[in-house]
């Protein structure tokens, strides 16, 4: 017990992300300053060279993501961090990383938008952009933490998932979690699961950099390791060479999607509170889930059977879980700091079985437990009437 107290430290969410990334083996960071993510770059600038890693401040966010893709291809685990305007600039190269299957992590500490919005105000307006921001069909994994400790854990997990599935992973923070300070106890290095990309176990003549059956993740050879191959954002064959062959094209795009869709058991994480007998489910993520948890507790005291469902992986969408919850719940309440982006997806899955209600604010402040509680009372009253 005393050991735990000794190891507890006060930490900011952004700092936890940086520490988590380093613990997962990240040794390269390229970025461009933007509130509310800048602390991550500042910490990396100081910490990376001490570990023999590299930090570079690039000329913009397009260059930042390009540089981390290059570093990852050269065999070094790499991340960048940004916020809305920078995240918009990164979209084309997120698509490149998806197409060329380069493991990278993009931390997006969301702030109010659109455009420059309110730079220091929290928001969750990039939820859909994180899934669909770049052109074309492509896989992406998006994680969203609700506490400082979870920011650390999900930073580690983001790096692990990127390496395992050779995909760009977005760690979708919000300003509240990014700047929140909490006492945390970090796992000791031995307790951490750290995943490294699988390297080829055949010689260069037999190596197929983009060949892995219909579903799989191909092994990845790093530049300079003796496997010479071509990496391109064009549709390519298993050797990496560009082609316009429709059969090869469809096979590739479907495999890219399948490698995520067929591994949901491994990828998805979520938590719940009081869901067993919940009549009204509050579905919340990120900072909003903290208010939602309080609201659920308060509602219970008033005899409202409320429960909280909190996806920590937002994309892929937790389709099965939400579908199952909708079977038993009379309503699903979705509070978000946007105009209802995730709610639309909940409606798509649950809308025919239950009532889906949003609590939406875009005023640059955290949604309070009271606002969610008021909505819970309203739904409860409505249900009692009908």
């Amino acid at each position, binding site marked *: 017990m005393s050991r735990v107290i000794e190891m507890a430290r006060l930490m900011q969410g952004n700092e936890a992300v940086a520490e988590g990334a380093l613990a997962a083996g990240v040794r390269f960071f390229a970025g461009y300053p933007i509130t509310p993510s800048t602390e991550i770059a500042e910490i990396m600038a100081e910490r990376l060279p001490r570990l023999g890693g590299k930090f570079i401040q690039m000329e913009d966010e*397009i260059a930042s993501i390009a540089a981390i893709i290059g570093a990852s291809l050269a065999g070094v685990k790499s991340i960048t961090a940004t916020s809305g305007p920078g995240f918009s600039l990164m979209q084309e190269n997120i698509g490149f990383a998806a197409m060329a299957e380069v493991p990278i992590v993009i931390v997006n500490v969301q702030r109010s938008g659109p455009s420059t919005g309110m730079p220091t105000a929290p928001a969750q307006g990039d939820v859909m952009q994180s899934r669909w921001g770049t052109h074309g069909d492509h896989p992406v994994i998006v994680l969203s933490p609700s506490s400082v400790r979870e920011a650390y854990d999900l930073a580690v997990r983001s790096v692990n998932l990127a390496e395992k599935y050779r995909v760009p992973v977005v760690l979708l923070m919000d300003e509240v979690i990014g700047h929140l300070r909490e006492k945390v106890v970090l796992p000791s290095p031995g307790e951490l699961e750290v995943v490294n990309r699988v390297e080829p176990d055949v010689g260069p003549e037999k190596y197929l950099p983009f060949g892995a059956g219909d579903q799989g993740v191909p092994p990845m050879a790093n530049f300079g390791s003796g496997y010479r191959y071509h990496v391109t954002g064009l549709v390519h064959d298993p050797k990496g060479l560009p082609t316009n062959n429709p059969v090869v094209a469809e096979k590739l795009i479907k495999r890219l999607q399948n490698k995520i869709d067929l591994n949901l058991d491994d990828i998805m994480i979520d938590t719940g509170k009081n869901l067993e007998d919940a009549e009204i489910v509050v579905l919340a993520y990120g900072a909003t889930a903290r208010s939602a948890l309080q609201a659920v507790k308060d509602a219970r005291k008033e005899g409202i059977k409320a429960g909280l469902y909190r996806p920590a992986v937002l994309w892929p969408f937790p389709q099965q879980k939400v579908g199952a919850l909708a079977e038993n719940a009379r309503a699903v309440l979705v509070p978000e700091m946007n105009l209802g982006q995730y709610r639309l997806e909940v409606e798509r899955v649950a809308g025919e079985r239950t009532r889906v209600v949003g609590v939406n604010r875009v005023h640059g402040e955290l949604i309070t437990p009271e606002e969610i509680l008021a909505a819970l009372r309203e739904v409860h009253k409505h249900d009692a009437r009908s």
Partner: protein
Amino acid sequence: MMQDLEKYLRVNMFPHMWCPGCGNGIVLSSLLRAVDKLKLDQNQTVIVGGIGCSSRAAGYLDFNTLHTTHGRALAFATGIKLARPELKVIVITGDGDCTSIGGNHFIHAARRNIDLTVLLFNNSIYGMTGGQYSPLTPVKKMATTAPYGTIEPNFDVADLARAAGATFVARSTTYHSNMLTGLIAEGIQHKGFSLVEAITACPTAYGRRNKMKSPADMLIWQKDNAVHINKAEQMSPGELAEKIVIGRLYCKEAPEYTELYDEVIKQAMGQVSGSVTSITGKGGKTSG
């Protein structure tokens, strides 16, 4: 292509996509001759291309090759070089790719003096998209997006590179391909950011619209207008107007970026660990 250079090519990629009479093949063979002259290890060499007819060359070459997004090759290359300084990194790019959409990355890579070699295929036009003007198209030339002739002045990319901080700058043409080979080899050997501009012919999208009906006309134009730097130094600006100055234009020694970063690592590792929170503690009021 000469037999001895075949080992550098992915021959299964041929036939290549370039038009008959395109100068890109000449530039490419100069590059391979330079690589051969220097005996570069194919496994330890990375070739990064942007987007355009010229950048497609990356796919034909048997090295570690990366075909990136339009304009961004230098930013990808910066990540590779900084992560693994022991790799030789060569960037192939077009006039539009390098100086228009990629112009910002170009000046900043030059400013850092990071050890990359840029081989710029300057055909004075956007070839791949069918003949729109680029920042290197001279004035009063015809392009599909300048049907009345171009009115924007063009960059002198060699001057631009030098002003931005490049430490090796050279130019040649596909007519002077032996000189081009030598300059590329020098650029690769030079420690720091090097630019080799290769004036090349796009008969399809540029020549035929600009009174050079055949690929041969374009080579003759290069021959007639190129002036070696040694001779150019004796000529007046008036005499040099419309001329192409070729040769090694500029070279100096300056600290190279990845080597400087290695010094940062040494300094950081020798340092007693300070508190990281002390860094995050300040500047809480800033925004942007």
